[in-house]
C-alpha cells in the first residue's frame, strides 16, 4: 500500500529522507488504525448498540416478562452468619455468570428471610432462603438481548465475574477501550497528514469539536 501522488504529505523543499520517514510513519499509523478497527469490530458495534439502547426510552416495568419462579431444596445450617449462608447458597446453586455477593448486597424480606440478588448481564436471579421450609425460592428475571449487550459493553476486567466467558469478554472490552482511544487520535492524525485542506474534513472536525466543547462547558 502506498500513497497516491495527490496525497503525498510532502513539503517541496523538505529533505528527501525526512519525507520518506513521514510517509513511513503515515503508512504505519494507517495500518495500525485499520487493523485495530477490524480486530475490535464486534466490540465497536456492541458499543453502538448500547448507545442506541440508552438513547431510546426504557421499556416500562409492565412490559417486562414475568419472573420465572422455581424452588430448590436447601437445608440452611443454623450456625452460619448471613454472608456465610450467602456463600453456601452460591456454592449450591452456582448461578451462571454471577459472582459471590458482597455483604452490603444482602437483604432481608418482611418475614426475615435472607434475600440474595445475583445480578448478571442476562438479568437478575433473586434467591430467597426459606429456612423454615428447607428450600430456596429462585425468581429469574431475564433481560432482552439488547439489554444484555448494554451490560456487556460495561463489562471490564475490574468488575467481571469469575466466569471464564465473562472474563474473556471483559479482556476484549479492555482491548476495545484502548482501541477506541487509539483510533480517535490516529484518525485525526491521518486526516491532518494527508488531507488537512479538505473542506469536508474541516467542517466536520470543527463542528464536532465545537459541539463537544460547548456542551462540556455548559454542563460544568
Amino acid at each position, binding site marked *: *500500500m502506498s500513497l497516491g501522488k495527490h496525497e503525498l504529505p510532502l513539503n517541496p523543499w523538505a529533505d528527501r529522507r525526512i519525507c520518506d520517514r513521514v510517509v513511513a510513519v503515515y503508512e504505519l499509523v494507517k*495500518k495500525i488504525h*485499520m487493523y485495530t*478497527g*477490524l*480486530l475490535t*469490530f*464486534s466490540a*465497536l*458495534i*456492541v*458499543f*453502538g448498540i*448500547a*448507545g*442506541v439502547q*440508552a*438513547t431510546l*426510552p426504557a421499556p416500562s416495568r409492565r412490559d417486562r416478562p414475568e419472573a420465572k419462579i422455581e424452588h430448590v431444596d436447601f437445608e440452611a445450617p443454623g450456625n452460619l452468619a448471613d454472608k456465610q449462608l450467602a456463600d453456601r447458597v452460591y456454592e449450591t446453586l452456582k448461578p*451462571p*455468570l454471577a459472582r459471590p455477593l458482597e455483604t452490603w448486597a444482602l437483604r432481608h424480606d418482611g418475614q426475615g428471610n435472607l434475600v440474595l440478588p445475583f445480578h*448478571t*448481564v*442476562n438479568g437478575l436471579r433473586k434467591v430467597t432462603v426459606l429456612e423454615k421450609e428447607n428450600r430456596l425460592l429462585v425468581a429469574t428475571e431475564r433481560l432482552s*438481548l439488547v439489554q444484555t*449487550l448494554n451490560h*456487556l459493553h*460495561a463489562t*471490564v476486567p*475490574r468488575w467481571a465475574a469469575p466466569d471464564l*466467558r*465473562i472474563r*474473556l*469478554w471483559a479482556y*476484549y472490552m*479492555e482491548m476495545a*477501550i*484502548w482501541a*477506541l*482511544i487509539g*483510533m480517535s*487520535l490516529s*484518525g*485525526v492524525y491521518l*486526516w491532518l497528514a494527508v*488531507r488537512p485542506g*479538505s473542506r469536508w*474534513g474541516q467542517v*466536520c*472536525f470543527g*463542528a*464536532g*469539536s465545537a459541539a*463537544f*466543547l460547548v*456542551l*462540556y462547558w*455548559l*454542563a*460544568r
Partner: protein
Amino acid sequence: MRNTHLAFGLSCWLFLLMYGVSSLQMSHGGWFPKTETVTETSVTIDMEEAPTPRSLARQLRQDHGLRGNLQRIRQNRKRIALRIVRPGTLHDVTYRIGSDHASVRTNRGGFIEMINRIHHLAGLGHEYELLNVWGFFVGFVSVALFGLGATGVYLWFKHYNERVIGLVLLGFSLAYGLTLIVLVRVA
C-alpha cells in the same frame, strides 16, 4: 465512502475519545486521582406560601442560578432535601421549613469526574434541556459508530494487498465476539 468515514470520524472524535478515556477510568480507577471539590454555602429563601420541593427548586434556579435536573427529593414535616444535578456539578440542598435560609452543598467534579458522569448520561426525557442535547449526541455518536464500522470495512476491502491479514483480524473479531455473546446469552 472515504469522505463518509472521514465525516463520521472527525465529527465524533472528541466524543469517542471521551468515551474511551472515561471507560479507562472506570476500568482502572486507581490511575486517575479524584479532583472534585466540595463547598457549602447558605442561600436566602423567600417563601410566601407553603414550600414544595419543586417550588424550592424553582426559586433556587431563578434566584441563585442553580442549574440541572431535580432529583432525590426527600420531604417530611420539618424539612425538604433535594438534589439539583448536571454532569459537572451536584447541589445537595437542605431546607428547614419556615426558615429563610437553605444550605447548599456543592460538589464540583474535575475533568475525570465530569467525563465519567457524561459517559453515563443518555436519553431524551430530561427536565433540564441541556441533558437532552447531550442525549441526542449520544444517539448520534452511536449511529456514527455503525457508520464508521461499515465504511471502515469497505475501505479495508478496497485495499487488495491487505485482504488476507484483514480477513484474519475481522474473522477473529466476529468469531470471538459473537461466540462469547452466544455463550453468555445461553448461560
